[in-house]
């Protein structure tokens, strides 16, 4: 065993040795910025909130900028992973746990006790941390801040500042740089600014982050949301149509051409945070076979849950009567079942072989969903489904999946479970995109003949916990539903073995036993069977 392991539990060594004076100054500036936020949290009433907010966010960003410039620009271009398994913060050491606890606590307060952050309830004005953000919120949309505005601002700053850090770290790698610019752009524009401006234009529209696609924004088909859109004339109708087109047209086409990475590593906000602020924790994801098994059960269960929940939500507010609205409960359920059956039958017919052993689980999943839907139809009343209130189902999903899983565990546990545990174990969107990627996509990671030396850098860096080496050392392409195409496995490979590519579907999956470089007859002989 490596005798380094105990080091990671130490607070000072060997991290502190490695950090330069400039980095210490940068750290101090950043902490000063955070300190202002903490003071605000404990209800310090700053005289000029706008000024202090600017100072705080400015200090935090500048701190991160200076720190990363000193960390990367003082060295030659190349892979910068020295000491990640020694540093306490990135190897589940004491600092890692401390950070994990702080983040988790923050998420719990954010989701469940926003009043502690200073949210003014029932029209009361904000206090504490949230009031510090009022000036910025007023500037953008003319209303006071909410806890979500505070969160969104910090989230965006994190993606921008750590995105810059990530780009310096990979300054020799254009793929990494471009996709980071892309997530920074989508976060700042689509998730942060545009919704605020949309509110200014039309304050009745529900919040809509255009790049967020169902089932990630599971609330889009809620009654209040749909009504909100529909009562807003053409813009609203346009938006909800865009939502539907995103799911059924745009997403499948892009995933077919580029794999799910177009979304997960180039657009998505959760992915954006994971790739930037979470980059230091990517190596913590478990590569064990058992973790993979857990992943497949968990993520598909969430998918089933989200499909059934969404259908149930829509179902409860549809009428029985044809004349009221053309889409009735019965027709709706029929359409959903028909669609799912079409997908299932199509896959079984065309892709049975590639599906392989997973076919059984696919079938189980399919029948579970259908059964649930049928039961729902026959037990459902105007507002009850499965004998419980439809809204209760919806809020259970919101609490357990939307808040606890994606926020508290997904992000709060970055320093413990790695930066993409939500994306890997929970995200229903990732499950759908992954399903397409596995079966209908040109994307794969090609391995380079016999060059792999089984060193394991690739697996170590895979945030999705894919044991990339297990494929590479067999010369087998990596076609995995969970791969988000971050490209880091390819970047860190010291032998140039991995390349993310979009190519023809033909020969994409190529199980081999004997690699290139050997006796040609032997390769044929062994690979034939």
């Amino acid at each position, binding site marked *: *065993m*490596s005798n*380094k*392991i105990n080091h990671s539990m130490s607070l000072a060594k*060997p991290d502190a*040795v*490695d950090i330069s004076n400039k980095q210490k100054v940068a750290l101090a500036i950043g902490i000063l910025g955070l300190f202002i936020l903490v003071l605000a949290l404990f209800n310090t009433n700053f005289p000029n909130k706008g000024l202090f907010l600017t100072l705080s966010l400015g200090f935090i960003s500048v701190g991160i900028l200076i720190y990363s410039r000193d960390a990367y620009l003082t060295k*030659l*271009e*190349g*892979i910068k*992973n*020295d*000491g990640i*398994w*020694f*540093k306490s913060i990135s190897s589940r050491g004491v600092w890692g746990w401390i950070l994990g606890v702080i983040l988790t606590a923050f998420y719990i307060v954010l989701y469940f006790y926003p009043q502690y952050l200073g949210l003014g309830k029932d029209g009361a004005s904000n206090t504490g941390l949230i009031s510090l953000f009022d000036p910025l919120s007023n500037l953008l949309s003319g209303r006071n801040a909410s806890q979500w505005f505070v969160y969104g601002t910090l989230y965006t700053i994190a993606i921008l500042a750590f995105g810059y850090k990530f780009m310096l770290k990979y300054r*020799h*790698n*254009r*793929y990494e740089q471009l996709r980071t610019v892309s997530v920074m752009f989508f976060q700042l524009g689509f998730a942060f600014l545009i919704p605020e401006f949309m509110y200014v234009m039309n304050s009745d529209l529900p919040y809509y982050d255009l790049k967020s696609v169902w089932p990630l924004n599971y609330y889009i088909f809620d009654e209040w949301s749909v009504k909100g859109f529909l009562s807003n004339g053409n813009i609203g109708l346009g938006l909800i149509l865009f939502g539907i087109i995103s799911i059924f047209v745009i997403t499948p086409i892009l995933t077919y051409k580029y794999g799910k990475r177009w979304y997960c590593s180039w657009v998505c906000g959760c992915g954006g945070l994971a790739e930037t602020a979470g980059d230091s924790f990517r*190596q913590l994801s478990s590569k*064990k076979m058992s973790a993979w098994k857990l992943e497949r059960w968990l993520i598909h269960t969430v998918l089933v849950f989200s499909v059934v929940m969404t259908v149930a939500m829509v179902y409860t507010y549809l009428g029985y009567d044809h004349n009221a609205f053309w889409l009735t409960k019965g027709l709706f359920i029929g359409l959903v079942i028909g669609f799912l059956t079409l997908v299932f039958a199509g896959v079984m017919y065309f892709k049975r072989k590639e599906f392989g052993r997973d076919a059984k689980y696919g079938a189980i999943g399919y029948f579970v969903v259908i059964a649930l839907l049928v039961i729902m139809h026959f037990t459902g009343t105007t507002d009850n489904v499965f004998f419980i209130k439809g809204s209760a189902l919806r809020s259970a999903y919101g609490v357990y999946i939307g808040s606890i899983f994606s926020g508290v565990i997904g992000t709060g546990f970055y320093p413990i479970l790695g930066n993409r545990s939500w994306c890997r174990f929970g995200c229903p969107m990732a499950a759908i995109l992954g399903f397409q990627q596995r079966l209908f996509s040109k994307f794969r990671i*090609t391995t*380079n*003949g*016999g*060059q792999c*030396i*089984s*060193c*394991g*850098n690739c*697996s*170590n860096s895979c945030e999705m916990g894919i044991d990339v*080496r*297990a494929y590479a*050392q067999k010369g087998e392409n990596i076609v995995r539903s969970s791969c988000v195409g971050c*490209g880091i496995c*390819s*970047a*860190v490979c*010291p*032998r*140039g073995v991995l*390349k*993310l*590519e979009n190519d023809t579907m033909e020969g994409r999956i190529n199980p081999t*036993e*004997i*690699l*290139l*470089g*050997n*006796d*040609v*007859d*032997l390769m044929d*002989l*062994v690979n034939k069977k």
Partner: protein
Amino acid sequence: MEHIVIIGNGISGVTAARHIRKLSDKQITIVSAETDYFFSRTALMYVYMGHMKFEHTQPYEDWFWEKNRIHLKKGYVKNIETKSKTLQFADGGSLQYDKLIIATGSKPNKFGWPGQDLDGVMGMYHKQDLDNLERYAPNNKVCKRAVIVGGGLIGIELAEMLNSRNIPVTFLVRENSFWNGVLPEGESTMINRHIKNHHIDLRLGNNLKEIISDENGKVKSIIIQETGEEITCDVVGLTAGVSPNIDFIKDSDIEIGRGVKVNRFLETSIQDVYAIGDCAEQHEGINGRRPIEAVWYTGRMMGETVAQTICGNRIQYNPGHWFNSAKFLDIEYQTYGWVFAKPRENEAHFHWKHADDTKCITVCYNKNTNEFLGINTFGIRMRHGIFDTWLTEKRDVDYVIAHLAEANFDPEFYKTYEVDIHSAFKNELQTV
């Protein structure tokens, strides 16, 4: 049931075991003195550098072995009695085999330097060397300077390792340019500059004379042969190549040379005894390869081949076109086909280097027939499959240069250099 015993749990022994299991139901035992489980030797450096933990160097999870009924035994084999088909262990035990595969790998070369066994002097091959390094060079307070002797692939890895912990390194290289017995001059000198850019004290054309001890039997300094200069240091890394790890076989009946002598079927001079990997020595090199090939993938291929033979499908070890790869600090290197340091008779080299001094290629071809013979590439990834095909098809060099883009394996959106290379190639032809 036939009992197959394999000495050595490196890539060659483990590959043989896995393939024998795939092909048969034989009883399999792997013996090793080094570690409980197979790990990737090539990744040792990343453990010291903190990129990975040691457990990450193990390509298979611990349950894999039992599940595949591959029995693992830890112990050092002291002696092989081929007449009674028995292995004697250093701790006194013994083990019977029906068929034996020797896959004991290499050990670092030591050339009888005075002081070569002092504390703080080590090779970089086994897990124990890594532990040693961790002990004598945990940081730059304990180890104020390290000296590396021998400028090969392992030497430069060791330099990178020490560099990652900010330990000053003096790198003694016998040749007058780094690895120029293998690399053509343009490449070798580029790597010289790259090493120096990493603030490594590269001493070309310098040999080790002796290692000097302090009063506790630990290294204190070294003396350079050429200049007589004494360099104070706390660690000396001996990385002047490796040779087969077969001392324990010397007293057996098995024929040895530098390594265990094998024929094309990887059979030794004794029936039912085979040798594969770093420790095997062919009577004659195959297709221009050396008789002993101490690289990862040849060990793997020999394992695949011997498994066939042992399971009743006797076939020759028949490696295809030569290829290999390495990394010099931040510069990746790949090679396909043959490119020698100096063009041999009837051969010519075309060399292209990028202005940033971190990328270059050298293409070797036959002057008379224009046949493409091989390529070295630095800082640009290339496709193994394509070059393998081109070599088999005996493409000419113009074709290869014109189609270089097809072979590019760099990540998406990278700058490409094929146009540059192509025009440099045409210019060179015109001036010749």
